[in-house]
């Protein structure tokens, strides 16, 4: 049996890796960032069960780390793919961490003494990390990484504090990128998604980046998270005060012919969940969700939506606000929208606005064909919905199409099944 490669260490890739490894097949799990975990690690809770995201994800991550058939290649990237189904030769670059992972214990002392502060990607820039860092407490592998772009030693040849204070003597500024070639039977791409945050609509129409109290939904997720920058307190960027009311705007950069005609599948329920989390912790904060159609389509979703309305008193307004204007004094936000019931335009002031921004896949370079809709093409949308048109290559999770966690997990398992057939034949 030949090994299989999984590219992307989010929940979909993790599931694929586990289901292959459990069948006795060797798996290389390639992850671009220093830790596996993906987007799910950034979420506070998950809908509709309100399970704490890290609580259900961490065991899977630990299982991956412990599995004898899985080799994690974190902080690594695929450079080249040659060969064919059943016999791929994949060149992978292991980026230098400048930390000897065999010595690093993940104690975090280096992070304490590093003087260079960088916006923290895990918290979407809502807080700062150091130039040497561990992305989050449950990271796997739990090893420090030096971000050379911001490290004073690499930039200005000064400091070397981490080296001085590292109790394990694990710092190695001399590390070089290391390229390895792996022979695998199949490759599963699970490269995940990012928000469509680069469109002018966000700044021009909704003032994101211009108005302090406008957030994206992922930012807000970090804001309500206990492990987030505020320890779970909802505080405004402008004045650090708890808002009296919050508006969620759905379908920002989704279902919009200008940049993304697709529905992003997850944002309706994510906002409902975030609304519930707000109401649960702060019953005094009013929550309004502006939506077009509330897409509570999954198992238990409609029931969750019903509870949001009835039990948690969240207000749902069927309208898509056209503009947001900031009150320069209070930094409150005035939303202009059409009240369809009254057939007229309305302006309403909110102290915080969360934009449910649509998603686009993170595309793995030229390795998989991409369709007009930005997502990876599939061989057969019915009979083989996880197979790329290129034989032996599979595309799952958000790369495949917009989808929620259960569907990503199911695709992970399904791709593992398909790849295992190839692995066993070769």
């Amino acid at each position, binding site marked *: 049996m030949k090994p299989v490669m999984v590219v992307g260490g989010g929940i979909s890739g993790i599931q694929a890796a586990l289901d292959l490894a459990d069948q006795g097949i060797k798996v290389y799990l390639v992850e671009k960032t220093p830790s596996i975990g993906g987007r799910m690690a950034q979420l506070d809770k998950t809908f509709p069960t309100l399970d704490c995201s890290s609580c259900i994800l961490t065991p899977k991550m630990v299982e991956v780390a412990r599995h004898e058939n899985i080799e994690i290649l974190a902080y690594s990237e695929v450079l080249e793919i040659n060969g064919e189904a059943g016999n791929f030769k994949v060149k992978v670059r292991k980026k230098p961490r400048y930390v000897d992972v065999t010595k690093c214990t993940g104690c975090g002392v280096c992070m304490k003494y590093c003087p260079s502060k960088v916006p923290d990607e895990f918290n979407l820039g809502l807080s700062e990390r150091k130039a040497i860092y561990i992305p989050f407490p*449950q990271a796997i592998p739990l090893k420090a990484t030096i971000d050379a772009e911001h490290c004073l030693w690499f930039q200005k040849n000064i400091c070397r504090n981490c080296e001085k204070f590292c109790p394990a003597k694990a710092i190695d500024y001399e590390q070089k990128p290391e390229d390895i070639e792996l022979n695998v039977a199949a490759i599963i791409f699970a490269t995940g998604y990012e928000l469509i945050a680069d469109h002018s609509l966000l700044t021009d129409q909704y003032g994101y980046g211009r108005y302090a109290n406008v957030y994206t939904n992922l930012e807000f997720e970090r804001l309500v998270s206990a492990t987030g920058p505020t320890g*779970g307190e909802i505080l405004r960027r402008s004045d650090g005060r708890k808002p009296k009311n919050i508006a969620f705007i759905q379908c920002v950069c989704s279902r919009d012919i200008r940049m993304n005609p697709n529905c992003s599948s997850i944002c309706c329920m994510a906002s409902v969940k975030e609304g519930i989390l707000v109401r649960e912790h702060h019953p005094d904060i009013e929550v309004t969700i502006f939506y077009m159609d509330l897409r509570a389509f999954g198992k238990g979703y409609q029931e969750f939506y019903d509870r949001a309305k009835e039990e948690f008193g969240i207000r749902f307004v069927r309208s898509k606000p056209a503009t947001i204007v900031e009150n320069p004094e209070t930094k409150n936000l005035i939303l202009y929208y059409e009240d*369809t019931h009254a057939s007229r335009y309305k302006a309403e002031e909110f102290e915080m606005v969360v934009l449910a921004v649509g998603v686009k896949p993170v595309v793995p370079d030229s390795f998989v064909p991409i369709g007009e809709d930005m997502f990876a093409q599939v061989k057969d949308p019915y009979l083989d919905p996880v197979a790329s048109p290129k034989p032996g290559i599979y595309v799952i999770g958000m790369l495949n199409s917009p989808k929620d966690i259960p569907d990503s997990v199911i695709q992970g398992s399904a791709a593992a099944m398909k790849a295992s057939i190839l692995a066993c034949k070769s």
Partner: protein
Amino acid sequence: MSSEEVKVEGACPTDEVRIGVYVCHCGLNIAGVINVKEVVEYAQKLPNVVSAKEYIFMCSAPGQDLIREDIKKCKLNRVVIAACGPEMHEPTFRAVLEEAGLNPYVLEMVSIREGSSWVHYEDPEAATEKAKDMVRMAVARARNLEPLEKMSGEVKQRALIVGGGIAGLASALDLAERGFEVHIVEKKPVLGGHAARMGQLNVEGRKVSGKDLVDYLVKKVKDNPNVHIYTNAEVTKVDGSIGNFTITVKLKPRYVNDKCTSCGKCVEVCPVTAPNEYEYGIGERKAIFLPFEGAYPNQYVIDPETCTFCGKCVEVCPEGAINLDEKEKEITLEVGGIILATGHDPYEPPVGEYGYGLSPKVITLHQLKRLLSEDGPTKGELVIDGKRPRNIVFISCVGSLGTTPNANQYCSRMCCSASLLEALHIKEKYPDAQVFFVHKDVRTYGKDENLYWKAIDNLVKFVRFEESPKVTVGKGEVKVEVEESTIQERLVIPADLVVLVTGMEPPKEIEELRSLFKVGCGGDGFLKEAHLKLNPVESLTGGIYLAGTATGPKSIAESIVAGSAAAAKAASLLSKDTIEVEPIVAVVDEDKCSGCGICVSICPYGAISLEKKEDGTRVSKVDPMLCQGCGTCGAACPSAAIQQNSYKDKQIIPQILAVFER
């Protein structure tokens, strides 16, 4: 005997039991409500506790390290973890114990998160007190926990797939191609389920029919030597457990054997008719019939429910393929894993709901699909009451979202897309038709949004309601009245055809299914997955996996993916020679057992038997591979001679007493 004595019995002497207690913050999930420090300090004072510590995430790598180091440093022989419940992390921490050289079964997990911080967040003081009580109870139980030897059983490398619909076929094909032997048991006389009758599909520009998909899978499945297909068959008994199930299957008589050439002479003479369930009630079939053209097996069948056994068909059959005396047969299958791909039923509106059953002009979406199918009763021509309908009104959420008193509360997920697909189909075929889509929310999620755009481009008229619409059936006339909620206007649409967009329901046999296979159902009545998010194709019962719409509404593509996913789970099991099973089985103390036989009488698995000893007396004997660890024998044993490992009297009673040792 006093409870005090029981408490002491079997416990290790005080100086031998060394317990470590680890309290998790779970970020703020626990620490945000419970005063963790206070709990830790409290735990330190409990008898036998030699170490008590807290950490932000006990399940994280550093948290696990902390426990491992402590076990070694403090020479612990029992571990209590106060965090979440055992479902998620018991395997994690058992591994930690093993890595530190401890037996994995001296672990006790106590859920102060689900059991306290998450439910008593409004009263942190009470939550903290409760957490202390829970820790004390856990310590009392842990004190008497015993190391257990792991047990393993053989895995039979074969799978049973219940249901030969699209998901079951996908699972079967994957497993067979992976090299495993597969048995498909289908209740109906033919494979294909609902998908085979779905008519034309069109996603991402690819036009196929449901039947094309089924045909493709059926062909591959039947040509694969690893696959055994039993149609017209039902599972009647399930014995054993993960890795080693014994399945009894009833093979119902078809009365027609494979000499049948489908010539159809029998149908002509058959005097009995019944509504054609394969056309969702459109038209009729005979008692002897072919479910649909090109079905597999492509062979006639007699429905014994409607057949009068008059024998006319036997007389005319040129091949002598009909045997009315055919008897039911029974076979047994030995399999390691089971995939339940038992599907769904379409919601059937009661007569009168939106005029259903009162006029031929009111039909369900399933019926519409049959009418538009080239292999359907009208060969794809949409003709209602002898005429081609012009005004066609789709009413969505029939049987879903609580729109009518009879409706389910949940959303059926794919009906919006499915009806827009048909709306476009109609528009393409009959461009002059007026199509109204009367809906609550349009839930064309993900890439299906494309259908919504196309429907708008093709001038499908969208009408939104909050109050359910009213359908009035007059003399040959049908009207749909609806309060359009966006523009707030009352619309009256005269309809030549009303299509009720019906949702999916758990199949009628769901009750029998779940008691047969010992799987649970959720609030919506569909089969329940082990974890809604992270274990969506596994049941809570080991070795039983769930595919397709068995767990809830899904599209065809989603069902196929779920079929493959369930196959992956089964493949993980079947690729092993042995499987570890929980050793929480019953054990007998022969010195106490008097052979009264009470346990033998009540064991649901026949795992206990009476064995004659040399002196002629009898004692109970447990077969640990058959025992599933329910412990009911322990509750009944009049001599306290049979006990369930990890749930012995001496482990539970101290836990009860500890509640009050405040």
